[in-house]
């Protein structure tokens, strides 16, 4: 049984039109995924619907077989689904340390919190150096690391990351993708949404191509990258082939 199953999900914002028009896909434990597709395809919307920020208008979201439609984001987090949004989701006047501690908001046990915090600082040594710095004063890449580190505090089953490289210089983006790669070693299932389709697909196992609110295609990530027709149709002609790392 898949970890996360999304079946025929329809969703939209407020009273607006359907952005997702019937998405079906499944996420297996331990695999890493990237969702790509043109602007407006519904990639972020999909993540938000799974995270519980948006309620599906139709269809089902299942975690470990249990129907999770309409759960609140805090409930989804408690169930192990962590969402890292694309806009600054930090607390700007809190320090790095305090931001990370907030990641452990749901944890009751103070000892556990401290242990996890140590673990996060080990995984992100750059953050350990800036423990007491106000999060609002960090660089883009450092802020992204805080949000990633924060997600580790609850030891999630799934981490869904919306546009990790947005606004970051290529070298910094590479570092972020390295860290995301590290998540896989920790056994966390990673689901990315990436506008930079090449970078995104290069760092995962499996890819979903979304367009007009539904899944157009799925397959092994390197297969998608290699297929010129998919590239042309969905990923834009201007993407030049990159050397695989």
């Amino acid at each position: 049984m898949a970890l996360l199953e999304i079946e025929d999900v329809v969703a939209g914002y407020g009273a607006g039109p359907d952005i997702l028009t019937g998405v079906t896909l499944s996420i297996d434990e331990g695999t890493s995924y990237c969702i790509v597709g043109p602007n407006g395809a519904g990639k972020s919307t999909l993540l938000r619907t799974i995270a519980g920020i948006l309620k599906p208008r139709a269809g089902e979201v299942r975690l470990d077989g249990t129907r999770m439609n309409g759960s609140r984001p805090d409930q989804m987090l408690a169930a192990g689904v962590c969402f890292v949004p694309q806009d600054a989701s930090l607390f700007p006047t809190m320090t790095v340390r305090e931001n990370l501690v907030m990641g452990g908001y749901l944890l009751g046990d103070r000892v556990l919190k401290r242990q996890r915090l140590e673990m996060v600082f080990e995984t992100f040594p750059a953050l350990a150096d800036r423990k007491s710095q106000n999060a609002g004063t960090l660089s883009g890449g450092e802020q992204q690391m805080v949000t990633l580190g924060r997600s580790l505090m609850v030891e999630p089953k799934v981490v869904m990351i919306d546009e990790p490289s947005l606004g970051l210089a290529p070298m910094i983006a590479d570092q972020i993708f390295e860290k995301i790669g590290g998540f896989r070693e920790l056994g966390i299932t990673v689901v990315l949404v990436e506008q930079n389709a090449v970078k995104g697909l290069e760092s995962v196992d499996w890819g979903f191509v979304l367009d007009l609110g539904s899944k157009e295609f799925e397959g092994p990530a390197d297969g998608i990258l290699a297929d010129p027709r998919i590239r042309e149709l969905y990923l834009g002609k201007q993407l030049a082939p990159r050397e695989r790392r």
Partner: protein
Amino acid sequence: MNWVQLLVLGLLLGSVYAMMASGLTLLFGVMRVVNLAHAAFILIASYITYLLFENLTLDPIVSLVITMPLMFGLGVIIYLVLFPRIEGSARYVEMTVLLTFGLALVVEGLLTFVFTGTFRSVRPAYVSTSIHVGDIFIPSNQLYASAVSFALLIGLWVLLRFTKTGTAIRATMQNRGAAQIVGVNVRRISAFAFGTGMALAGAAGSLLSFLFPFFPGKHWQWIALLLSLIVLGGMGSIKGAVIGALLLAIASAVVTDTFGPTWSPITFYLTLFLILLVRPQGLFGAKLRL
């Protein structure tokens, strides 16, 4: 009047203003609600205190024990009934202004209906006594009101700083989306924050009842003052509200002493306009995030 006297009077009154303003700020900071009815609710508490005093001879400060939980409950109910409907709308903040505006009108009308327009006040013994410290004379009622206000402000600080709920409230004030992501139940926290803001309004009502005479239409003066104070301090900043309140009260004491009582509100609004010309986000505000 000498400087120190003015300073002391200003601080005393300012602490009451500060408590009122911090309740209002809480509502804005956590839920982006601009509560035009805040002073109307303060009035409700004043009238309740009045009833308790007239009929049960209950000391107004003691009646805090009743008005605060009552207003907390009222706040939670109002929040849950009214606000979820407009939550998704594009002009949410504006809607809260209009909604609470309507609410204020309803409250005022009902209060007039029940209590008529007669000026009321609560007059426990300490309204007419005062304390002398050296050269300074301190009216007892102001002293007690101020002491309670300070205590409540400290209580608020402790709540926000050291409790899990308080941390959740602060997080939600800083970034609602982020708070949601880390597992804060923002709906529940918002309701709690609304209740807390209203509880502070309840306390203010009980305290004001023996500081100034009141009638149903009085809340407009108060809310204009409080809102201007918050804009001056920078919306969403409790620190700004407190500092603004203290500064205002001290300036008000000085102006009243020098030019007479009518001038003090005029100078305040003029100052507000001047500051808005130069610094539209207020003293401590960030560029307003709507």
